[in-house]
């Protein structure tokens, strides 16, 4: 499977173009940025879970916010939207349905990670 097939439906091409525009063709940096995203995400996912389970809504809010921004940069718009919903729960302190949302975030993140790793390999 090629990178473009991997990314289809997971990463928004307009958002990726914007990111590439910002990076200006520096593929080394692009790879580094993908690595940073993939390295940081597990901590954010863990913080979301911990925030939900421990009732620390501020932690949930911040972690969801960070992953929302990062995933939007790479065009992972579905993931970003799910994070936004989760962020709103954290902000409002409404934890109902948060567990299910986190599961969907985790599943969506797995897809985004696969797509980004494919892109990285093709750089």
């Amino acid at each position, binding site marked *: 499977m090629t990178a473009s097939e991997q990314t289809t439906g997971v990463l928004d091409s307009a958002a990726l173009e914007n990111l590439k525009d910002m990076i*200006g063709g*520096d593929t080394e940096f692009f790879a580094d*940025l993908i690595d*940073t995203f993939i390295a940081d995400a597990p901590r954010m996912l863990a913080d979301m879970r911990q925030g939900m389970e421990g009732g620390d809504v501020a932690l949930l809010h*911040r972690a969801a*916010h960070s992953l929302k921004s990062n995933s*939007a940069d790479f065009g992972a718009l579905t993931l970003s939207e799910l994070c936004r919903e989760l962020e709103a729960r954290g902000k409002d302190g409404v934890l109902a349905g948060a567990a299910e949302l986190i599961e969907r975030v985790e599943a969506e993140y797995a897809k985004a990670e696969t797509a980004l790793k494919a892109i990285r390999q093709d750089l």
Partner: protein
Amino acid sequence: MTNQDTILVVDDNPVQSKLALHFLRRTGYDVLIATSGEEALEQVRDIRPDLILLDVLMPGIDGFETCRRLKDGEETRDIPVIFMTSLSDTADKVKGFEFGAVDYVTKPIQPQELLARINTHLTIRNLQKSLQQEIVEREKLIAELDAFAHTVAHDLKSPLTSIVGYANVLEEHHAAISGDDLLRYLQVIAQNGYRMGNIIDELLLLASVRAMEDVEIKPLDMAAIVSEARGRLAYMIEEYEAEIDLPESWPVARGYGPWVEEVWANYLSNALKYGGRPPHVELGATERIDGGPDGFEVVRFYVRDNGDGLTPGEQERLFTPFERLDQVKAMGHGLGLSIVGRIMRKLQGQVGVESEVGVGSTFWFSLPA
């Protein structure tokens, strides 16, 4: 606009800060990163960035509180702050303005939009800075003018009173005044007229020194300049029966002739007025010496008199800047030495005096060789 401006990016999220750092550096800015509000506040204490890009949601104090504290600090309140918010955080976008931010950008950042906003606010900030500087300079000029006007009026009043007084006496009693007295009265009137003329010359000189923007700095024909200055004081030299020693030749220094002539005229007239009786005045120069503030070579010119000399306290009050003339009445030297000081600063030179009570004084100025 130069892209030497420094931008501080405050974001706890490594992907975001790396991206901003890479992009802004690539564009030509100096970029600093802080990963929290506290760290940002610490950094601005040492380095004043020209602009701050501030994330809202961070552990510890958030972006709004960070901005509030920046705006509270006298030293940091003028640094423009642009918030970085998420497109979805509608409330946050405008909230930043309440805390003193100048603008916001939404994430994901659109590179051209970010640059346009940064450029706009740096331009505004730079204009603001130069306006503030201009205001400070103008206030200084106004203070100088006030002090100068005050001093000039004060200095002109006393010789004028004297002229009017003697003229009144002559008007009322001319028939009864002897020939010797008549001559003496007329001499007093003439002397006071000269004094007033000198003060007015100083006023005109100050006006030209104040207006000076770019004068042409070139090697000076010091013999000719000194000769001009002496010529202007011929009446005083004759009156005081002064003896003046000149060197056979002068080293070359760089400056602006008409002003250097004023400096000589000022030093020389002081040496005649306050020197010995009769005045014995020596004009001279050293060879090139190190001594410029930037390490360049200078030539030091001097006027040495055989007067009473000056105490250290008196020496300190000479060369008083105009704005302080009101508070420090610099003996009889009046405005002249203040103008000399001003001229030499503009010509990258220096001024000074060496004096010993009972021996005499040496007033000097140095110019780049």
